[in-house]
């Protein structure tokens, strides 16, 4: 090594020592044999090593021998020889009687242009707390998902019980009108319960409308259609999915319109069918319920709207949609249109 190179190496060493001494992070300066040239105060504080017993000692001999990690030594030697560098190497520092620490190690060779005077800067980040925090957050997310699923099951179960009580009441009362009201109430509750089931099965909180409307109409049909040869209820829906709150409104609208058709469109055991259709194109969608019944009475404009009509209009308004009632010849078609 010529004099100029030697002076440069000494200057570089001084600079490296100054950087290590002033560092707030745990940093080591090692030589080519992995002996410690200098360690930052932060290194000694963090890993509880006596500062007086650091310089000049092999890395593997620091502390109680916890730094004697063959894989780390191997990587550092490869770095010292210039064939590799260490970036983000994670290791567990195991100390007797103490909690293991998770460290992220980075190491670089300082180029002194002198093969006999190798220096390595090794920085160590203690990420134990960060890893624990990440694991806790993951655990918490998993627990919340379990809790949400249980809540959905419990709510669906509660709704099912309410629907059962209403159905039981409907079967007991003598008044035809009261029975009708109780059945309607039962179907409204079932509309929400069905949606709740769909939501529990969905991962992203979206509801597949095809499955939802099919289940919903099957439930209404089971409770309100006694002769399936006389009346049929069919559902055609494209592959639309919507958010839960919108699905609730759409489900209630379907419930009201189907109940309305079942109650008024097929008097005296008239045969026919009810078709529920939903299709969307971008943000625009149309929900229609069509029956092949007797159609609207001639004086329908003067007819007093019932609770069902009020519910449909309110829900359509909530969805920024318009309600269109038209003669289908035969029957009636009610469309809820959102543009």
């Amino acid at each position, binding site marked *: 090594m010529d004099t100029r190179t030697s002076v440069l190496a000494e200057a570089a060493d001084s600079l490296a020592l100054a950087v290590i001494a002033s560092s707030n992070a745990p940093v080591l300066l090692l030589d080519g044999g992995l002996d410690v040239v200098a360690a930052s105060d932060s290194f000694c504080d963090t890993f509880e090593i006596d500062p007086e017993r650091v310089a000049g000692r092999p890395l593997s001999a620091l502390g109680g021998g916890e730094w004697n990690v063959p894989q780390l030594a191997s990587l550092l030697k490869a770095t010292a020889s210039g064939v590799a560098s260490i970036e983000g190497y994670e290791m567990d520092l195991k100390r007797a009687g103490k909690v293991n620490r998770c460290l992220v190690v980075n190491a670089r060779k300082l180029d002194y242009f002198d093969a006999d005077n190798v220096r390595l800067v090794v920085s160590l980040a203690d990420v134990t707390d960060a890893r*624990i*925090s990440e694991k*806790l*957050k993951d*655990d*918490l997310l998993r*627990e*919340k998902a*379990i*809790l949400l699923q*249980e*809540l959905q*099951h*419990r709510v669906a*179960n*509660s709704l*099912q*019980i309410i629907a*059962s*009580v209403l*159905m*039981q009441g409907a*079967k*007991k009362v003598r008044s035809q009108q009261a029975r009708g009201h109780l059945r309607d109430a039962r179907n409204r509750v079932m509309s929400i319960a069905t949606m709740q089931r769909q939501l529990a099965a969905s991962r992203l909180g979206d509801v597949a409308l095809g499955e939802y409307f099919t289940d919903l109409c099957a439930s209404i049909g089971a409770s309100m259609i006694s002769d399936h040869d006389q009346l049929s209820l069919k559902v055609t829906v494209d592959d639309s999915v919507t958010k839960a709150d919108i699905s609730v409104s759409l489900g209630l609208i379907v419930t009201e319109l189907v109940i309305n058709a079942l109650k008024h469109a097929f008097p005296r055991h008239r045969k026919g069918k009810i078709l529920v259709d939903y299709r969307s194109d971008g943000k625009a969608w149309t929900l229609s319920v069509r029956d092949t019944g007797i159609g609207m009475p001639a004086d329908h404009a003067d007819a007093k709207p019932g609770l069902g009509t009020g519910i449909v209009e309110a829900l359509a308004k909530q969805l920024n949609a318009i309600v269109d009632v038209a003669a289908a010849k035969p029957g009636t078609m009610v469309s809820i249109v959102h543009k």
Partner: protein
Amino acid sequence: MRTAIECLAKASEMEARAAECTLPATRMQFLDAAIRWRDLARRALLQEQGGPPPEPEG
């Protein structure tokens, strides 16, 4: 669906997780989960005691 006892066990588990948690925000969320599990246990107990009414025959 879990029984009332299973919901209470989950509540206790969440409380234990909260107790060993050093991060205040995460601890509060575990405690919140414990409260919700206790509420679910209460609901489950009500349903287990009453049960869904049987459908009348005929």
